[in-house]
């Protein structure tokens, strides 16, 4: 129960923090915001690594591989495409 309450505290506070930060992002940058946030949601990767490397059974290894590959695609692709877009918003002069 203690663990649950601690996790709930973090969850709720992070949601509020998210609302506060994101409302300050101007509409100009909403597309990079979306792809950048999307890349951050690839944090699932952290949750997949341990299972993928534990060599427990064929099933967990296959699932682990799939999860690592998809989460990595999400992370790498998301940050890269965001970078490409943000470069365009640099002042040319």
């Amino acid at each position, binding site marked *: 129960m203690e663990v*649950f309450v601690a*996790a709930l505290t*973090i*969850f709720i506070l*992070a*949601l509020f*923090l*998210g*609302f506060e*930060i*994101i409302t300050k992002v101007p*509409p*100009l940058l909403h597309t*990079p*915001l*979306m792809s*950048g*946030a*999307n890349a*951050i*949601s*690839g*944090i*699932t*990767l*952290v*949750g997949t*690594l*341990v*299972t993928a*490397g*534990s*060599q*427990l059974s064929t*099933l*967990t*290894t296959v*699932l*682990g591989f*799939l*999860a*690592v*590959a*998809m*989460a*990595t*695609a*999400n992370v*790498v*692709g*998301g*940050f*890269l*495409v965001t*970078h490409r*877009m*943000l470069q365009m918003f*640099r*002042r*040319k002069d």
Partner: protein
Amino acid sequence: MSQALINLFYLAAAVLFILGLKGLSHPRTAVRGNLMGSAGMLLAVVVTLLDQRIVSFQIILAGLVVGGLIGGILAARVAMTSMPQMVAVFNGFGGAASAVAVGAVVEEALARGMIEQLTSAQFTVASAASGMIGAVTFTGSMIAFTKLQGLILEKPFLFPGRHVVNLMLLVGSLGLSGWFVADPSSSLSFWLMIAAASVLGILLVVPIGGADMPVVIALLNSYSGLAAAGVGWVLNNSVLIIAGSLVGAAGFILTSLMCRAMNRSLTNVMFAGVGATISKSDEEDIYTGKIKSASAEDVAMMLDGARRVVIVPGYGMAVAQAQYVVHDLTQLLESKDVEVEFAIHPVAGRMPGHMNVLLAEASIPYDKLLEMDVINPSFQQTDVTLVIGANDVVNPLAREDDPSIPIAGMPILDVDQSRSVVIVKRSLSPGFAGIANPLFAADNTVMLFGDAKQVAMDLLAAMKQG
């Protein structure tokens, strides 16, 4: 490394994510912000790899390489017009990764006989929740991708009894989740739930039209964050919970902004199937005898005498790839001391902020791209407003208080208040809302028919001659 030390590094990663998102509040700091976010991710991954439960790195490495290549190649090659489908694909990957990751953790707990975990309600409930949200995110995003890419019909596909079928799938997924929570000794109920949720994701997005995809993508973005946060609940991992809820909040804010910009509720966007039928009834009365067609030379003369010009770009301009020529036109006008600004409606393009990216790609400085609320008061002092490939967002019918008008109450750009309006458009065909636009027949409006890119080139040529 002790768990406490690992958690401290996770905390540092979470702080980097927060600073990274904060950096996106201004174009000047945005690039650095994104780099901070990726540094946070790298830190979290490296620290996790030091975990002693990892006995072999082969599978991990293979996954990192395959995923990195797929993501890297897609991101490096995608055209800016295709950004919405790109985000949808990455979103889908994220959702699927969460669902599969939770499945792997459940199988691991079963194989190891980790009774303590399996009997904890936090573990089972969070597994079921993030698995379900992840699966809906995956298949929903894939359908959104195929619609935006034009692989399947963009129009809403409304099958009879869809609300009943969807409700049954929802209840079914929740029931299977309940079964798993009550009896986690077998993973069968978990995987059946994943299957039901996957079908639900497909059927939820299929009835939604192409122009409503910005809302769908924003919502699915929010879901992918919540699914990641769910994985954090399963593993008791704080960085997953923090990062996931930040993304959940971001997606939710963008979803509600998009809905407000169309004056529609989320329920209406998701379930009403708007755009399935196009009414042609009142077009004749509005247009007959009132449409004035102009040539590029006529419009070039109007622009030549103007002191202030506002350009309203719509998705049609991007489809025609006219933004580069529009950039040249802007420069020519500015060299003649004409003030030029761009009016960006919140739903211009196919995802939030999409039009800004397309114009920035064409080297149009971002300080010329003005939001609706900022530019609306200035239309009265505008000599010529050039509407290129936009329709519903400038339709004065939106101001009417008539519920039969699909866009009633939607905030619009007040272009009809400028001295003269030029509409660049292929034909008089209606926009996504399927209704006629009285602006086209207004006294101060002329139509310049043709493909946006060709018209912009003709205008450029005519102005250089004049």
